[in-house]
């Protein structure tokens, strides 16, 4: 049986194709466009192409993500929480806490031993605890996103930053730059600030080992480093697939 999960995120749309609910055979990630349906279709097609599978061989398509309702060709839809929980458990069954950080949202999910969701918490309305923060700051500092996280790892300490908000952080960063604070320290301060926000949400469900971090921002080593420090515990990344695919994977797993 072939299933496909499509995660229409606010910034990226991810698709994962799964064989017999166990084997990942294809995946793709494209920028979410104006037209959700189109983005979803494109992501799916790319993933199918990578898998070498035809569209009519797919038995079931399940959508998730913030645009999940605008994928009319999907057979079913599931919430991001359940998708991330399922995907996280599949990727690492010893996971008890899943932290998902995407472009605009973050959430903490607590899993039972059997993978069932025991509790979850969503971050509240402020983008300061998600990927857009790093996107904006990296752009401001004129550093490619991929390097922005590395910068943070190289820093000796964090610059003092008060801003609790993306926009104000931008002005804080302006003034830090003006004070000639090294970019490394600014980067570290930003990652610490995000980790701080994410942690304060996830703490609501309680941190239980193992902690798995998924979603696009998990690719950012600076963030992972700050998060570890903030939570004072080891955190893991999925090994079977890149972290941003986990919710799409979870969606594809729905049908077993």
């Amino acid at each position, binding site marked *: 049986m072939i299933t496909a999960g499509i995660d229409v995120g606010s910034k990226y749309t991810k698709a994962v194709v799964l064989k017999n609910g166990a084997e990942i055979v294809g995946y793709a990630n494209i920028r979410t466009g104006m037209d959700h349906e189109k983005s979803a279709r494109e992501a799916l097609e790319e993933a199918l192409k990578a898998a070498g599978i035809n569209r009519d061989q797919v038995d079931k398509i399940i959508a998730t993500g913030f645009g999940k309702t605008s994928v009319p060709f999907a057979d079913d839809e599931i919430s991001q929480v359940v998708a991330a929980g399922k995907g996280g458990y599949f990727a690492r069954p010893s996971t008890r806490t899943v932290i998902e950080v995407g472009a605009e949202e973050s959430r903490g999910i607590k899993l039972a031993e059997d993978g069932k969701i025991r509790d979850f918490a969503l971050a*509240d309305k402020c983008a300061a605890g998600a990927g857009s923060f790093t996107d904006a700051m990296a752009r401001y500092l004129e550093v490619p996103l991929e390097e922005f996280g590395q910068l943070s790892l190289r820093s000796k300490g964090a610059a*003092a930053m*008060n*801003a*609790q908000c993306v926009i*104000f952080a931008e*002005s*804080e960063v302006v*003034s830090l730059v003006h004070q000639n604070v090294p970019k490394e320290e600014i980067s570290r301060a930003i990652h610490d*600030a995000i*980790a*701080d*926000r994410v*942690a*304060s*949400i996830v*703490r*609501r469900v*309680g941190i239980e080992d193992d902690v798995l971090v998924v979603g696009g921002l998990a690719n950012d080593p600076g963030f992972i480093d700050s998060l570890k420090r*903030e939570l004072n515990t080891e955190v893991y990344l999925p090994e079977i697939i890149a972290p941003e695919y986990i919710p799409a994977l979870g969606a594809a797993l729905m049908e077993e």
Partner: protein
Amino acid sequence: MGKKAEELPQYKQFAEWIENRHDYAKKWQQNNGGKVVGYLCTYVPEEILYAGGVLPVRILGSHEPESITRPYLHDMYCPFCHDCLAQGLEGRFDYLDGIMLAQSCLHLRQVFFTWEERVPVDWSYYMHFPHGVNNNHAAEYLKGELEKFKVAVEEWTGTTITNKELDDAIEVYNKNRQLMKQVYEFRKLENPPITGLHAMEMVISSQMVDKKEHNEVLESLLEDLKDAEVDRDTGTRLMIIGSEDDDREFFKMVEYEQNYSATFVFEEHCTGARYFWDEVRPEEDRLMAIAKRYVNRVPCPAKDWPTYGFYGRRRFNWIEKWVKEFNVDGAIIMQQKFCDPHELDIPSLRELLDNLNIPHLFLEFDITVPVGQFRTRVEAFLESIGEDDLFF
């Protein structure tokens, strides 16, 4: 000429006490074999603890960002209480033998209960305390609560608190209040030998150390102040009015690190005058005397509202008096974000200051102060008060 005002050793002592507050308390514990109680609001009747051989220390801000309180405390509770609770949860007060609160705002209450439950501590006490301090029956009611409290302290420490001990405690506390008021007198001078930073550090440190020791330093400070040499420009005379505030960074920025000279000549908040202005007036019934002191002190806005024939705010009468006596040029209304008691008074406070012709600047504080943003506001405020000669 005496010493340079800025270099007075007593100022260093105050700052050092604040920085090493935890070490001080631990050492005190060892040296005196006594218990240390952390308290969350200045309505706690410290005299009774002190009489029982207990050192009361106030739990104040650390001004470090944290992420551990939000599972328990609502986001819209004030940053100060998040900061206090965070330090508790992080174990920075693990030496405390007890914690207590005299009923004040809701935010602090929640901090107290969460602390009590989640931070191991031998003893905790929530004291019911009148909120309507302006009503005629408040002192009587409080006296009853003080009786219960005294018994609780006695049971906990396994001693009885004698009248003599109460009198001694009252004396030490009153003395501290008198001395600090005398220091404040120097702030009325045209060029005060003490800045707001040091004055605030004086008051904050008094909340953290044994008052007897504090009194000694105050006495020597008063000696030195008499002929201290002031070599800074006083500039605009500012008063701060508002919520709890122990953010020294802000004071440093305003008085030492910006474009214009300015000096705080008065702090109205509970890390300033509201804390120490009133003394216990001794009477035979000691607990009644203490009760009256706490009911009649300059009230916190959380407790200052009309009853019977009184329709004003008692605190405002004080503010008016201080503005005049200390020759204040401008006021900074400083409020902890989300602090409801203050927020509810500020519209009326603004009217009061307008009527007094005192320009004012409103600032909202968080756990950490955005110094850059505040600098611009403060400088612009000072520009609007002074700098007349730029215009011709």
